[in-house]
């Protein structure tokens, strides 16, 4: 497998992992809204907390993690950009 294909394969599996996390925080937990709301977090009902703040925060964290990881993948295959381009 060429360097290019190996890079793309790794990029693609990273994309699937990121989207799986995204799917969990945007879809899966809200499938169980009523159940989650019986639990509490910081004094808020959990499902309320997630839709008001928790999932939003999760997306921010996922994105910073995802960009960092992708940058190291690019680095690994020698595709990192030079700063002065």
């Amino acid at each position, binding site marked *: 497998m060429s360097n290019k294909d190996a890079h793309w394969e790794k990029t693609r599996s990273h994309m699937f992992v990121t989207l799986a996390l995204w799917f969990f925080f945007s879809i899966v937990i809200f499938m169980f809204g009523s159940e989650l709301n019986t639990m509490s977090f910081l004094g808020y009902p959990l*499902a309320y907390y997630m839709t008001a703040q928790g999932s939003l925060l999760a997306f921010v964290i996922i994105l910073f993690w995802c960009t960092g990881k992708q940058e190291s993948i690019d680095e690994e295959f020698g*595709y990192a950009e030079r*700063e002065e381009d």
Partner: protein
Amino acid sequence: MFKGGFIQNLPKIYGLYTGGFAVFIILMAVAESAGVSAKNIGVMFVVFTVGIYAFIGYLSRTVQVDAYYVAGRQVPTVFNGMATAADWMSGASFVALAGGVYFGGYTYMAFLVGWTGGYVLVATLLAPYLRKFGCYTVPDFIGTRYGGNLVRACSVFVLFIASFTYVTAQINATGTIASRALGIPFELGVWIGLISILICSMLGGMRAVTWTQVAQYIVLIVAYLLPVFWISSKVGGGVFPHLMLGDEVARLGELEQQFGLVKNSAADMKAAGVPGGLKYISGPHSAVPDGGMAVWKYLSLAICMMVGTASLPHILMRYFTTPSVKSARRSVAWSLFFIFLLYSSAPMLATLSKLSLMDPNLATGIIGKSIADVQAIEWVQRWSEVKQVFIADFNGDGMLQLNEFFMRGDVVVLATPEVAGLPFVISGLVFAGGMAAAMSTADGLVLAISNALSHDIYYKIIDPKADTAKRLIVARVLLVIIGAAGAYIASFRLTSILGSVAWAFDFAMSGLFFPLVLGVWWKRATREGAIAGILAGISSGLVYLLYVYPKFSVAIWGVAHDPWLGIDHLRFGMIGAPICLVTMVVVSLMTKEPDAATQKMVDDCRIPSGKAVLGKQH
């Protein structure tokens, strides 16, 4: 003081600007205590901030094509994040989001998840690859990847429908805020708003819009967060409301039980003469509604908003302006962070403002009090006069019930500082913030439309030999025409017919999401597949909208139809996008594989390093 170029000095420049704005707020506070009227303070806030945006717009004028279309591709990561956040957060987000949460509670908050979660799709599926491609506009990518004028024109068509639906609402919001703050008629406010928008964008295109959007973000985030934190500590919600409102949310649940959540009949509301657009609390704040349908409605709305976010051209094109692929990706994360600051505060503002009106133990509480007393309150009178607040007495007991108090959603943001007894300088600041939010989004949208028309239709299809000067003249003329058309429609208040800004997301999702994503992620996607997919997606979405939206379906079929599987007019992308995907895949597989040059182009855009696929000047 300023060594080095403009870009190196950006943190200093915007630092000074923020400091200057803080000084201005303090000066206004001093002026207020010296007896300057509330109205004049509002005027000064709007005039001062809009004046600064216009000045930035003038300083950023340019005669270069790549500065005009993509800000010279030198916008640093974090600044691009701020500009995108301003581009993203519309007048509606600013003034209506908290109101939506106030009335809709948990169910409405699907919008919050949708409007933030979409950025994960932008960062993983699109932004870095489109940046590597080196296009000027979103249709530029589709036109080059699939090849040919027809597919380019189809994508411009979708862009136009989606963005134009959105822009009239923004110009409308600009006009509303300008008219309220300056005390002028709405129609005049719309045109003043348009002129401010054009001054910011016409001379410098994307470059000017970028630097004004950063300035607008700073104003709007200060204007949103300052009142939230102030009100919270004032009404005893704690100094950091985001982490400390658990008890208040629980208390709202108790109050709902105590007062009872009653649905008014349409006949009652009509008989009482409730003005259009006003709402009352009929759903729970934090409780999750029961049943599979409620879950499906929540999820389908969130999906439409997320996928729509990832297909809206005025957002995607912001990531064409960064210096590298890496910084495009990183700036998506920053954008979401800056958006998060406002979006996570909206439910807190809604909670505080709801509690201060509902809790009988608080001095500001009005529910459960006698109607005569409530009608004597100053802010109730002021907002009733302009038909933003309405009180009915359905059961005739002289006491105000929860279902008898009506309010427009915008009032939550615009009046809460006043209700909580904050000085008027805060209300003036909120006007300036709302104006900044509406202007920045309108700027981005008008530019997205006129750039697509000038670059993709005029330059790429009609006159490929046009020189730089001519291209930029055409771009500017189109900018003025699009802006004027939007303002013209807004000034007739036809926006009520255009329905919701959510439609823009559904249109974009129906016609653009899969052609964009498959263009990067599936080499086998062909031109014929893309054309068929775009047309099938947008037309099925549009037909379903006509079918399901009562105003349209009554006009066409004479009857209102029930939504199919709960997919109403806010969610019609759930019909369009899957049809687009299936059509695109089937037609692509039936037609000949793209040629080697196209496949190489896709390969190149997947690798972050190296030259852009399209040349610097194209």
